[in-house]
């Protein structure tokens, strides 16, 4: 079966698989610094896969979005996060709420679910990269899981951004990209969001003396 798949598709599938792997790595990662690096790498892989799709289909706007991805996801956001890390002097380990092995097991379960959910849909696809939809969904879910299990505000943000990466993967690989105006809008939102978050971090640290989100459990009803 694999023989019938063209090389470009194989390349895209490879990129997607690497992204999935990186997501798992992020899930397992204890250090914030490493987490950001992994995130940057994930952005880079996303750029690669978008580029391959662009080359394969020859759609010009995909080149644009590939460039945007590289700029935003692989360079700008990791840089902002790094700056924040230094400015806020965040060190030490990322404390997970659930221990890492359990998280990994849950993550595998999620991947299975994601693949199964996506399976009937990807079979309908006429694009060459239909398998990646499952992977994209899995990435989204794993990022979700990461946000649930992490305790530091910054790692939650990384989780959030990596979720966006998953979405982007779905958009480019499964559908050959959304309309340009939409993609631009999305990118703008992500950027503004990240900036606002950056401002937030300072305020949070000012008020709580920490970026640990367990300080932020005052508003409750019980």
């Amino acid at each position, binding site marked *: 079966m694999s023989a019938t798949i063209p090389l470009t598709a194989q390349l895209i599938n490879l990129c997607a698989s690497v992204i999935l792997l990186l997501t798992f790595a992020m899930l397992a990662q204890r250090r914030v610094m490493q987490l950001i690096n992994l995130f940057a790498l994930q952005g880079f892989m996303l750029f690669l896969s978008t580029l391959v799709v662009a080359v394969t289909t020859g759609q010009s706007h995909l080149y644009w979005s590939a460039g945007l991805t590289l700029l935003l996801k692989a360079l700008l956001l990791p840089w902002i996060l790094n700056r924040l890390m230094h400015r806020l002097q965040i060190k030490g380990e990322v404390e997970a709420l659930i221990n890492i092995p359990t998280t990994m097991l849950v993550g595998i379960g999620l991947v299975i679910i994601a693949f199964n959910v996506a399976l009937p849909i990807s079979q309908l696809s006429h694009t060459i990269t239909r398998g990646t939809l499952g992977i994209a969904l899995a990435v*989204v879910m794993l990022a979700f899981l990461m946000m649930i299990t992490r305790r530091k505000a910054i790692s939650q943000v990384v989780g959030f951004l990596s979720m966006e990466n998953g979405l982007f993967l779905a958009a480019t690989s499964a559908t050959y990209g959304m309309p340009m105006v939409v993609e631009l*809008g*999305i990118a703008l*939102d992500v950027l503004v969001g990240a900036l606002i978050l950056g401002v937030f971090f300072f305020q949070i640290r000012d008020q709580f003396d920490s970026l640990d989100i367990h300080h932020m459990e005052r*508003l409750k009803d019980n």
Partner: protein
Amino acid sequence: MTFDIFVILLAIPLVSGALLTVFGERDWAPHLNIIASGGTFIAAVWLTISIITDGPRFAFGEQFFIDSLNVFFVALTAFVGLTTSIFSGPYMKNEAAHGRLTIPRLRLYKSMYQLFMFTMLVALTTNNMGILWVAMEAATLTTVLLVSLYRTPASLEAAWKYFILCGVGIAQALFGTILLYFAAERILGESGNALLWTHLVNVKAFLEPNIMALAFIFLFVGYGTKVGLAPLHNWLPDAHAEGPTPVSAVLSGLLLNVALYAILRCKVLADGAIEGAFAGNLMMGFGLFTLLLAAFFLSRQRDVKRMFAYSSIEHMGLITFAFGMGGAVANFAGLLHMTMHSLTKSAIFFAVGHATQKTGTQMMDDIRGLIHVNPLIGWGLMLGTLAILGMPPFGVFASEFMILTHAMKHHPWATPFLLLALGVAFAAIFGKVQPMVFGETEAKRLPHAPAITPVFLHLAIVLMLGLYIPPYLTRWFQEAARMLG
């Protein structure tokens, strides 16, 4: 000619938002805020009239589409936006006088307020499901800044939760949008038209049901987070309670509506593609669950704004349930209820805002005897509460009556739950508000006289609609309800 008015509608908040970002600290800035809102409202009315007379139309190519459904929301949004800006004038001055806000924050508030209006208007009028998503996300971002305006630990926590939960939620909606595009592209081709609602709605019967179901689930969870459907609602009470009161008013009165509007647009597509009432059942289930849950939350509240936030959740549940039932009557009732809820809830928040300013606390146990402090605020809160609880002759009752009777006819199993929730909510809210309004207190004057007009203006409209819905409004609602199927 009509093209212009739409551009003006969008341009006024955008431009004034930009202006206020720069000149927000000037003396005339609050007036500009009100004038801009007023201009938006006038433009919205103009647009509405033109839509009623000329029928639906496009703008900016096919990127924007205004029909009787969303023009109604535009008008409502512009109206509540105007009254809220009137209300926020003295309110914000008082806050500044109490030292809770600095001048730069006021600037931020005004500019973000206008930009927030802009994002909502874009979300309402866009024809592109992708831009809809972008606008929703942008609305989230602007309101996050508004919620965290006080920069207190509590407001930061609320804003953080709001941002993360809604951000994640909205991300699900994006996945849903991608899936929608994925489904549409197979029929509409890879042109940029595959996300245009007017095109989608033409081919909705040919969309692949499996993909559409999945897409709808993601869209529903995503925008549903923003609507505040349980159990995705957790951000909502925090954000409402900790932000400035005008923001609570527009969040409750407008943003929730816009999110629900997004779901409605998606539901129309899902209904066309999927056999059976999949989307409707989903909405009914979540609506009922939300309604019940929120009702039980109400009785444990101590913070007045938080309690009314839960009340908003409750009403969103009811409205979602109504639209879930579908059909001309239920949709009509749902639209009516959205209108009533927007008007009433924002009026309540206005009154609550003044009340909390007077007493200096949001804790209900510490607020007593509002009727002595200021009879108009006291009565405003009292009447608003009674209205939101569905007491006739206020309009909320009219829509609840229609929803209930329709439910009785088509889904009798749901009525006991509906009534249980409404009963519990009544006991909870009224039991808390009554001692706040009545009773004894030591009075205190505010540095700036409160703006009471918006409260009673809203309540008067709600009262009128409870007794008499003008025929043109009826036709308008019916037209919109018919479009929702």
